[in-house]
């Protein structure tokens, strides 16, 4: 089931990101669905799953992008791992905590791209990129991520409790 879900995400998210999502852009900024998915999977199911999905999604994403084939793969893998690690520290995953985590991960991802791809640019250009692309993108990702978390978190938690508890839920 989990493998099928991961395969569906890997094969389906990038086409959606490339086509349909252009209609959901605000000021030319589109949310990064792949980052949101990786972050949530890492957050809800652990660092290993997050990292594996991140590596796979990042790789496929780079196939349909003008960037190098390793940058997104490594960054997304790291995002999945870090999201899993963060979830271990959180006793209570409130929406504010999920928002902050998601925003932090998106900022991290954006800054890695900025340094790797525009490292030779001047400070003014870097600052402008952070202000007009990295920060709005992080806020957009975090807001959408919290929305998706609100939709799926309860369902995932219930299935995890069912699997780990000897007593069926509700009895």
């Amino acid at each position: 089931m989990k493998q099928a879900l991961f395969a569906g995400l890997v094969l389906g998210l990038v086409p959606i990101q490339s086509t349909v999502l252009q209609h959901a852009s605000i000021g030319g900024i589109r949310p990064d669905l792949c980052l949101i998915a990786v972050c949530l999977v890492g957050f809800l199911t652990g660092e290993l799953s997050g990292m594996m999905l991140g590596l796979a999604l990042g790789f496929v994403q780079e196939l349909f992008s003008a960037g190098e084939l390793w940058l997104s793969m490594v960054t997304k893998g790291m995002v999945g791992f870090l999201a899993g690690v963060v979830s271990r520290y959180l006793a209570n995953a409130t929406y504010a905590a999920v928002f902050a985590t998601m925003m932090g991960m998106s900022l991290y991802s954006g800054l890695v791209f900025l340094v790797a791809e525009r490292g030779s640019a001047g400070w003014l250009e870097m600052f402008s990129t952070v202000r007009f692309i990295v920060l709005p993108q992080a806020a957009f990702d975090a807001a959408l991520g919290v929305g998706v978390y609100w939709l799926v978190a309860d369902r995932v938690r219930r299935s995890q409790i069912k699997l780990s508890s000897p007593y069926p839920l509700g009895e």
Partner: protein
Amino acid sequence: MAMLPSISGARRVKIVLLALLCSIVLVLPAQSRQLLQQVGIPLADVVAVPLRALTALEGSIQKVWNKYVALQDVYEENRRLQEQIEILRNQNHELRELAFMSHQLSALLEFKGRLSSETVAAQVIGLDSTNWYRGVVLNKGQQDGIRAEMGVLTLSGVVGRVVKATKYSSVVLLVNDPNNAVPGLIQRTRDQGIVLGTIGGRARMRYIPLLSTVQLGDVVATSGLTGAFPKGIPIGTISRIEKEDDDLFLSAEIVPQVDFTKLEEVLVITALPTTAEETSEEFDGATP
């Protein structure tokens, strides 16, 4: 203080192995790129299937909306007029370029040969999957003769260059992306420079000679110095002129000729005319 739950042995080994893989990719990017490319091409073909399906579905819905829900006649007429404007604008640029060249040596007329460049028509099926590059995905790839570094244009002018090509799709980096560079030529003054993209979505021509008489509104076209484009394809119009910090060169902001938000059909230049090189040499030799 909360204790961090420990990771079990097998998971720890998997995480270390994955981290090691990432490290190898980071340390040896050039070597790993080839391997990743090999793995990626078949995978890209699989992902291209839902991508095409989604594009077709989206196109159908949009078509139904535009033709039957929105004003049918106005849409059709507008589309026809837009096409005519594109064609006339292109003809205008061609005529201006040819008029200038007719005052040069007769050998320069050979440049008409560049219009017979071999091209492949392709459809834009998606945007770059990240927000970090201005790029588009085309529905044709290596199977149709498209390779990396080939030039892409529309009837209006330069679109960009192919940076990745798989069997059935290819990725084009637009001319207004900061990572792109195209040799340019100011049509009126014949000054050459390099056209780079900007963060703001426009383009900037750099390294224009300080004594150039460039003016606002001058048209910048490709110079044909490197392989992707023949000479004289319009890139954009100069909207602002600035001096570089060191005052050795001028730079100029360019409004691209192509509206990248409305890209649908493009032409990929698969082969330049064989006579272009000879013509270029004649041109260089005859210029005072």
